[in-house]
């Protein structure tokens, strides 16, 4: 519970109706999409505008009350679970699209706007915001920026980071900072915009952002290829890229995922197939046509069992259904679904998926893998039951091995979901002790009282890296 004095001061800022602390409110803001994490906050606060945010932060800084900024709580790293209590801050009142600038091709928004709502609004003006996390129907831009979210279009168009060109944020002392702007070029000092992207709510509170837009691609075409092994699919991917084609989407499903998807959706996938590649290209019609033809040839040359090119947008939709239902199919198998995002250089995908299969066998856990073949971002997904503590421990060990393996291959522990609490014990595996110290120094400079989303990114006790014998 907040002490009376703090509560009084906060109520004075936002009004009683915007400071919630009933039993019910505390329960529903105690979790995010991360399995097995839950902790009650002391209260929930709804600032109406940035001035409220600044005033709230000042009070919290004075009384050392933790603040956990929260978008829609769809993150998968326990990023908005208030493990140290404090205030959960909502942006329900700060969800406006402030401006769509058709001359500079930018959109300026408040952090609470839903990603898809914004994408639709800019598309109405013939403009395009490419980052498309599969959660975009409900995720917020504030959350996207703080996790640096990616999506299916990452290979060709990049991720959230590549579109954030200006940010307004409230520092942990209550001062308001503006970085960047509607500028393609800007080297005035350190790049604070990039620093804030992916900062997971640990450095400050974003109150406004300016995002870069591009023209909507004129057309899009979809194709689907089946393989008897993941290696063969991997060869296709390598050959497409070495032929200097960058498709808009290049997604894969592995054999266990195909099996589960077919069981669930009955869409006629051959369950004995070793892998599926879903490929899309967008752009001017001639280019799309040429690239799709060439990619189809490449699939044949690299021994695809079959190649299907959609003849209409509806057919295209149908072809993507296998990839789209992957998560649904997997999530239904067991009560607990753990969706990870280890990432490797794209040339290593089939090697990595094989390693994941071996690790799953070793620990006797069920893991299916699908993901972004184009950029090496894998989603090894484990189906388990959080009540089975013995199995949960094996799952954790399996993921530890997977992270270690990914790093050995020059990859990373997380490609798009963020560190949060989930992966904080492994951060030093990726960036080294010195790397963690550098990050910690930045954190302390910004937030000496450690009020901003405490307990995230930096682990209380880091995991010792056990060298896996091979």
């Amino acid at each position, binding site marked *: 519970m907040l002490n009376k004095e703090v509560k009084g001061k906060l109520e004075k800022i936002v009004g009683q109706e915007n400071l919630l602390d009933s039993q019910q409110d505390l329960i529903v803001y105690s979790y995010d*999409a991360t*399995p097995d994490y839950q902790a009650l906050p002391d209260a929930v606060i709804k600032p109406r505008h940035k001035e409220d945010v600044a005033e709230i932060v000042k009070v919290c800084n004075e009384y050392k009350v933790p603040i956990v900024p929260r978008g*829609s709580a769809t993150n998968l790293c326990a990023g908005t679970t208030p493990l140290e209590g404090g205030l959960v801050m909502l942006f329900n009142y700060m969800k406006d699209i402030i401006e769509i600038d058709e001359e500079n091709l930018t959109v300026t928004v408040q952090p609470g706007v839903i990603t898809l709502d914004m994408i639709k609004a800019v598309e109405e003006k013939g403009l395009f915001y490419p980052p498309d996390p599969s959660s975009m129907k*409900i995720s917020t831009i504030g959350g996207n920026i703080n996790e640096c979210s990616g999506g299916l279009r990452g290979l060709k168009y990049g991720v959230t980071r590549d579109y954030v060109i200006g940010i307004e944020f409230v520092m942990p002392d209550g001062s308001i900072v503006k970085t960047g702007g509607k500028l393609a070029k800007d080297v005035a000092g350190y790049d604070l915009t990039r620093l804030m992207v992916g900062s997971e709510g640990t450095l400050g509170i974003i109150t406004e952002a300016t995002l870069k837009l591009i023209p909507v691609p004129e057309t899009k075409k979809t194709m689907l290829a089946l393989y008897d092994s993941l290696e063969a699919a991997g060869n296709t991917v390598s050959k497409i890229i070495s032929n200097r084609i960058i498709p808009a989407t290049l997604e894969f499903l592995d054999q266990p995922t195909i099996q589960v998807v077919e069981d669930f959706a009955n869409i006629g996938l051959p369950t004995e197939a070793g892998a599926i590649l879903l490929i899309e290209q967008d752009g001017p019609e001639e280019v799309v046509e040429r690239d799709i033809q060439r990619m189809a040839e490449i699939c044949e040359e690299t021994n695809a069992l079959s190649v299907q090119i959609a003849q209409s947008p509806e057919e295209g939709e149908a072809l993507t259904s296998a990839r789209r239902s992957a998560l649904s199919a997997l999530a*239904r198998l067991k009560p607990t*679904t753990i969706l990870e995002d280890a990432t490797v250089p794209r040339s290593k995908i089939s090697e990595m998926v094989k390693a994941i299969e071996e690790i799953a066998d070793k620990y006797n856990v069920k893991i299916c893998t699908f993901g972004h073949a184009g950029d090496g971002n894998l989603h090894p997904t484990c189906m388990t039951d959080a009540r089975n503590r013995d199995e949960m421990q094996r799952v954790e060990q399996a993921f530890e091995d997977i992270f270690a393996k990914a790093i050995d291959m020059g990859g990373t522990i997380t490609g798009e979901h963020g560190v949060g609490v989930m992966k904080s014990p492994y951060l030093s595996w990726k960036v080294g002790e010195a790397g963690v110290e550098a990050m910690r120094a930045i954190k302390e400079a910004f937030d000496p009282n450690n009020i901003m989303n405490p307990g995230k990114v930096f682990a209380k006790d880091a995991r010792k890296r056990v060298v896996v014998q091979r």
Partner: protein
Amino acid sequence: MSVEESKRKTQIVQDFQSKMDYDELLNCMRCGFCLPSCPTYIETGGNEAASPRGRIALMKAVVDGKMEPDKDFEDQLSLCLGCRACEPACPSGVKYGHLLEEARDILQAKKKHSLPVKFVRRFFFDQVFPHQNRMRTLNSLMWFYQKSGVQKLARATNMTRIAGKNMSTMEKVLPAIPSPSKMKNRPERIEAESAVKKKVAFFSGCLMDTMFMETNDATLYLLKKANCEVVIPQTQNCCGALHAHSGEKDTAKELAKKNIEAFEEGDFDYIISNAGGCGALLVEYDYLLKDEPEWKERAKAFSDKVMDITEILYDAGLPDMELDPQIVTYQDSCHLRNVMRTAAAPRKLLQSIKGVTYMEMKEADQCCGSAGTYNIIEQEMSMQILDHKMANVEKTEAATIVTANPGCLLQMKAGVEREGKRDSMRAVHIVDLLAEAVKYGEKSLQKA
């Protein structure tokens, strides 16, 4: 808290622990994908507690002993429309509707109603809905009320205002009740017009066969025109949906058993329903009776046959339809869409009517706020949702709003009243419009 009150809460917690399906609660992975489809989440400006993910977390917290089932908790479950729009959106396949029903059933059993409420509940849930003949009697009274001039008097003196403004709107839009003698002579069998395409049984429904009798007649007419041979088992009863959704599960189960028995004999492949709200419970009889081994199989055989009228009409095919030129829009019945998963057939039927310009309204798949008895219990939210809905209707410039469930129909009629649009807009049940269009089509053919 009084001793009695705390006893009641302890009992609720125990019931939650023994009765709630914990696997299903855990099955929610808290991804939040259901949030944008939840009307109460949207109308409350994004209150997590009023979302499916939030409500599941609250139910789980009660089971886990982390939360007392306090007033907020009960209010939150009451505010839920039970529209089940959260289910198709859920990647994990969480059966939210079942969780809600179970929770409401527990709370209802432990609820102390004030005497009048208790009386009304008992009267309707035990005495009227389960008995077709009493439904007729009640409707006869309504008929008398409407025909005798008492209604006029009541309207003139604003008597209905006493029951709240919304009730008075509701009362205005109730259909003209058929005369008692008409209600008694219901058909038992209808022959196909020519070569039989499908053999079906018709589930007539308690409200549908009384207050909405004309719609049932239109349904039978259309089935005939689509060359379906129809039997109408006479021992059938109310489906039990209102009971199941209001925490009166035991009565719902009894009604289900009677209906299963009524439809076990006879030569037909489908059981046709023309009310989304009834149909959705009928297709889930197997779930309703899941704990009764001797009924499970029989219930499944019944449920597997249930189909909405629009599906069979679309499948079997109707004669050419035509209407005066008009813009038509369609409001999904939540249970028809989210539970029976019928959404395309009604739209395709409407689009096939000559003269009709079909305009899809924004958010047609979202609840209209009727939701069984919701518009009586949660008036404020219901009306807020309705106003939002009417704004979307108006953007289509439709003259005709089509629905597929009596509750939705009344609610949309109330919407038309509230907007003062009675002269330029009407709300109709889809089978009434289709029957009108078939008849019109026949006439044009004769002229030509």
